[in-house]
């Protein structure tokens, strides 16, 4: 059995490649740059899994790797694969479609293509991009599904230009969810694979609890000046806010999909425990990057807040986190500073800044930006007290005394 894995990144190597190899697949990576060259040269890598107390190392070997520049070789690998996996980042799905289309066109039998991307309908996006290039593939019977990944893979260690195996550092969970009806039977036998019919609901669950909480820890952590997610969630105020934000999302999920899918508070506590895992060395700057995407109308913050509001839950914490994401975006020069917060809310989040949730986010953003500067630190989330003031205010009172 052979699996072709397009995208030797953190999730590609640190999760998918390891599970496929553990399942007995011959694994062929397809990618570009120094990492794929390292995999081709060294022929193996290491996945280091840690829960903060115990660490386990998994040798992933042997693996092969082919550069995307070798188009013919890539197409030949895909043509003879038993499974195709993609993990290139949601924004790159369309870009890899020609490569996949060329390989799929050479096939004599259908195959399953699984996109391990943390976004809404990655399989649909990839499939349509492939079909636009090769319309005949519409009737070829290939299976396409997204995959919801449970593991955090925080980083890659090692020099890709060197001769030592690269190390991918992650936490232990190895579950992932696919949309069974979209794949060809029989489903691949991979540890951790769970097939569901309501994929969209499970994706929402991941986005609106785990991903919302992770983003909340990063954005609020950045406001309070912490470097790492594991430190940010140890701050009592942030911990409460992260838990509350996830709870708002969970209650929205419970209303729409029922309590069984939504899970309970213990699940949220387990998620918080995972965020505490310092061995992942997960910097808030990494977790918080791409705030514009994370502020999307269906994404982890605004999507979760909308769902909560539909359920009659006031999404105050999620609104604050969305405002913190906008502050982060302004500092990171992600485009929010240029197009302005109101336009961001309208065009990216689909919210009206004058009413409802949009007004709540806009109001929190205004309050935050009163003191927000690159080196200013929020001392209190509740009172929005900053460590230094832009203007001298002789009448200010403790604990917001200005002196």
């Amino acid at each position: 059995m052979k699996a072709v894995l397009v995208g030797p990144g953190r999730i590609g190597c640190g999760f998918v490649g390891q599970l496929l190899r553990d399942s007995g697949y011959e694994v062929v990576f397809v990618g570009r740059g120094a990492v794929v060259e390292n995999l081709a040269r060294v022929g193996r890598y290491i996945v280091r899994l840690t829960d903060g107390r115990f660490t386990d190392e998994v040798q992933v070997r042997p693996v092969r790797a082919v550069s995307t520049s070798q188009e013919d070789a890539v197409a030949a690998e895909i043509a003879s694969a038993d499974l195709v996996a993609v993990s290139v980042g949601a924004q790159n799905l369309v870009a890899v479609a020609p490569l996949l289309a060329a390989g799929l066109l050479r096939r004599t039998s259908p195959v399953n293509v699984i996109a391990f991307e943390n976004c809404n309908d990655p399989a649909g996006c990839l499939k349509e991009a492939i079909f636009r290039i090769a319309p005949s593939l519409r009737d070829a019977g290939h299976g396409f599904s997204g995959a919801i990944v449970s593991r955090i893979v925080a980083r890659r260690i090692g020099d890709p230009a060197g001769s030592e195996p690269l190390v991918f550092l992650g936490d232990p969970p190895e579950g992932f969810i696919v949309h069974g009806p979209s794949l060809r039977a029989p489903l691949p036998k991979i540890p951790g694979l769970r097939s569901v019919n309501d994929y969209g609901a499970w994706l929402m669950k991941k986005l609106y609890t785990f991903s919302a909480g992770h983003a909340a820890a990063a954005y609020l952590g950045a406001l309070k000046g912490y470097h790492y997610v594991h430190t940010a969630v140890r701050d009592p105020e942030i911990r409460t806010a992260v838990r509350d934000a996830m709870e708002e999302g969970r209650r929205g999920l419970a209303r729409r999909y029922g309590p069984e899918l939504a899970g309970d508070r213990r699940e949220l506590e387990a998620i918080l425990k995972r965020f505490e895992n310092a061995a992942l060395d997960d910097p808030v700057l990494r977790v918080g990057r791409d705030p514009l995407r994370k502020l999307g109308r269906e994404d982890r913050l605004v999507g979760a807040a909308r769902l909560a509001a539909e359920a009659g839950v006031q999404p105050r914490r999620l609104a604050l986190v969305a405002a913190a994401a906008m502050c982060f975006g302004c500092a990171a020069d992600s485009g929010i500073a240029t197009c302005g917060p109101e336009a961001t809310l309208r065009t990216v989040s689909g919210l009206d800044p004058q009413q409802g949730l949009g007004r709540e986010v806009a109001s929190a953003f205004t309050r935050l930006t009163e003191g927000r500067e690159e080196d200013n630190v929020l001392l209190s989330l509740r009172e929005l007290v900053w460590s230094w003031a832009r203007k001298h205010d002789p009448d200010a009172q403790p604990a917001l005394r200005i002196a």
Partner: protein
Amino acid sequence: MKIGILMPRQRTSRRSPLMPEVLKLLREFGATVDVIYPDDHVTDVGSLRVEHDLYVLRSDTELALSVAGALHAIGAPILNPWPVASMMKDRIAAARRLAAAGIPVPETHVTCVPQRLAHLLEEGPLVLKPARGARGRGMRVVFEPDELEEAGTGGPILAQRYHRPDGADRKIYCIGGQLFGVLRRYPALSYHEKCGESFSIAPELREIALGCGAAFGVDLFGIDVVVSEGKPWVVDVRSFPGFRGVPDAALRLADYIYATAQRVLAGHAVAELPGLNTIGERKAVTA
């Protein structure tokens, strides 16, 4: 990640809860943390080796500073770097360094014989402090020449012009470039008063605090500021203060120490020292 922390002498009383909490957090983060008490042990200087990725110089005793100096001499990365901690410990050198950087420091004189300061009292009272010291130990305000008789300690004395404070002392702490202001009464009469209360730092004080850090090239320190008739004066600077009154101080310190150790492991220096061998007069940072 191996971190060695040079701590003051172990004592059963007057122990701040800060460092035990910092140590606990660093260990939770997965770091191996060794606590070193230079004042409680015999250190074989000849066999001293760099055994940690980062040393944290929490203690400012003479022996701890010397051991840090020995570690510095064999290339150990130390937070704060030994030249900085040494200069901050020496109030004479620190005052000159700050003044050279344009920081408002009270008029400063040094002597071993306090009586020689008598003529300075004609201009107003003086604050006398041991030239090497920390916190308020051995500090006194002198108004009259006959008070100088009792001020001798046998060692060098730093005399600074006394500026009567307008209110509570202002402590400004810096952790990783982030500033935290604490108002504290002196002398503090209760634990609550010792902790002080947070304040948002006004722009002028912020400039001064950042200027102090820049003068020494570090972003971990504390300064004492007296505001007198509306004008701020920096009257003390410390390399690793107690950070009492800083919200979530232990967590912030652990986060900063861990990030610094990561930076060192990635091959970077603990701090970029801005020409500590050459003091150039700089433009005042205040308007």
